[in-house]
């Protein structure tokens, strides 16, 4: 119980945060394949952790397990996410066009992955293993204390979305129409960056990278509820995200065995076919 309950709660929170940030990005960028990975936020968190775990020998620090180590990882991931977020914000300041912002986000992601690869190449086996394990994601590592932090971050991250629900509905018709209906695009963009940064950043910080939830869940919400209205899609995505991640967690807990599969692998195994199926549907882009 002491192990299972925090784990289940973590799954619920991670499911909510990732899905809600995916939903925001898909609507804001009018792109069905946008997700928390797209703005480079998850990669940024990865970079933070990689620097902490693998650049230790170069900078002269070492991180091993224990409570201190776990918090160090969370802080490093948050810092990494915030760093990428700041870079993105600076770009958002300069760039007015959302498509450009999307591409720049993807480039940030690739550049960050490249830096991680370089770090991995020079790091020692022990450190590399630590990082690899982190990058597989884990829902089980959170204590009640961390759960409190995660909950607060989730609530703070969702507040801007609630505030801007109507604007997101207007965005369904594209930026120009939204503007003609009185939506301040600049404000919405900042709100989106802030909210997704906090949500996806904290999920990655506490659980490591978890793939596909952010992309696939909002689509499932649209499919199930047959609507584009964010007043329905927001709670729907949060709910479905929580359920799916709990389900994935259940699968990862191999029945009759003490072993658990890495959660990132499970979500990818379920999410990748799901995204492919979505794309192959005849009217996918039309119905988005």
């Amino acid at each position, binding site marked *: 119980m002491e192990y299972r309950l925090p784990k289940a709660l973590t799954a619920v929170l991670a499911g909510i945060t990732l899905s809600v940030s995916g939903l925001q990005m898909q609507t804001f960028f*009018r792109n069905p394949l946008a997700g928390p990975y797209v703005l480079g936020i998850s990669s940024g968190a990865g970079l933070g952790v990689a620097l902490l775990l693998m650049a230790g020998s170069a900078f002269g620090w070492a991180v091993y397990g224990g409570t201190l180590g776990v918090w160090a990882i969370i802080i490093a991931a948050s810092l990494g996410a915030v760093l990428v977020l700041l870079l993105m914000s600076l770009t958002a300041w300069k760039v007015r066009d959302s498509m450009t912002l999307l591409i720049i986000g993807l480039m940030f992601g690739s550049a960050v992955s490249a830096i991680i690869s370089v770090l991995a190449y020079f790091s020692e086996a022990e450190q590399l293993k630590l990082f690899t394990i982190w990058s597989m994601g884990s829902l089980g590592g959170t204590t009640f204390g961390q759960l409190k932090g995660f909950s607060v971050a989730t609530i703070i991250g969702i507040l801007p979305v609630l*505030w801007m*629900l*109507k604007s997101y*509905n*207007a965005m*369904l*018709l*594209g930026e*120009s*129409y939204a*503007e*003609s*209906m*009185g*939506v*301040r695009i600049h404000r919405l963009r900042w709100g989106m960056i802030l909210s997704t940064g906090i949500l996806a950043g904290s999920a990655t910080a506490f659980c490591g990278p978890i793939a596909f939830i952010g992309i696939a869940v909002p689509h499932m919400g*649209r499919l199930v509820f*047959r*609507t*584009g*209205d964010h*007043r329905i899609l927001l709670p729907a995505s949060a709910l479905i995200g929580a359920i799916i991640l709990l389900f994935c967690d259940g699968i990862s807990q191999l029945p009759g065995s003490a072993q658990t599969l890495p959660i990132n692998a499970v979500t990818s195994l379920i999410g990748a076919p799901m995204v492919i199926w979505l794309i192959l549907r005849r*009217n996918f*882009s*039309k*119905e*988005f």
Partner: protein
Amino acid sequence: MAYQEPILCARNLNLGYQKGRISKKIAENINFRLEKGKLTCLLGPNGVGKSTLIKTIMGQLPPLGGQILLNGKGIQKIGIKEISKKIAVVLTEKISTGTLTVRQMVELGRIPHTGWLGKLTERDEMKVNKAIRATNIQYLSDTPLSELSDGQLQKAMIARAVAQDGEILILDEPTAHLDLVNRFEIMHLLRKIAKEEKKAVLVVTHDLEIAIETADEFWLMQCGLPLVTGLPEDLIIRQELDILLPSEKLTFDKIDGKVRVLNEMVVNAIKGSNPLNKWLSLAMKKSNIHQLSEDSKLEIKEEPFSIELKTENSLQSFYSIEDFLKFLNNIKE
């Protein structure tokens, strides 16, 4: 009629983009008055700044000079929230959402008027119903947008703009990509909205013929020239529509209301009744045949259709225009 204060007017407006210290002027010295209850058509070639003008009116782009007054107040001083309650638009960009039904999309038009959650009041519902009725799309209410034809989608977009309930409705090429029937329907629909709802409707269009038939007012925009405004019929009589046709070879024909090539030689008088005559001469013009030899006479007959070409010592008959043209082309070569 009493003097009507225009809802929107511009004084010495300069349009363009400002990027850093560099400003790119697109059009200058524009003056206009947009009035309620009138359908105004803005005509002009591509790239002359029509879309820039619309963006400036919507307050999305600051003017480089001069000012636009909305109800007598400078548009720069009005926030886009306030503007959105006065001006609704239908743009050229394609919307990329299919999950909404027509009704849900029209409801989005009420966004400027609703609270933070966007909940519709009874009044909002009424406005939405009215907009759907005004555009005759009741039967489409529950159809998802992805299943609409282009014409139906355009009507739905117009319904959304009507539901937004501004006093001004601006449409950027609402009839592009539409078939002939839909083009007529949409323009007449807009005219009806202007008249019945007492809105100022501004339509950017390239459809000169339909515009002449429906518009109360024309604005003609041409590079380097001031905006010409006036009643379409007046502009036609004054030959002012010619400013839309920069090439000296083109002119606007007052008689049948069409653009014509100037200086073309008149095809020798063709004997025969009018509709046949007209199409034959059009076909000959298109294949660059402007004159037949002096001594030849051309006669066109109905029932059965035939074309007879008489010269002094020969008579030839053709049973389709195509055959006739082939024959003429052979002679030329």
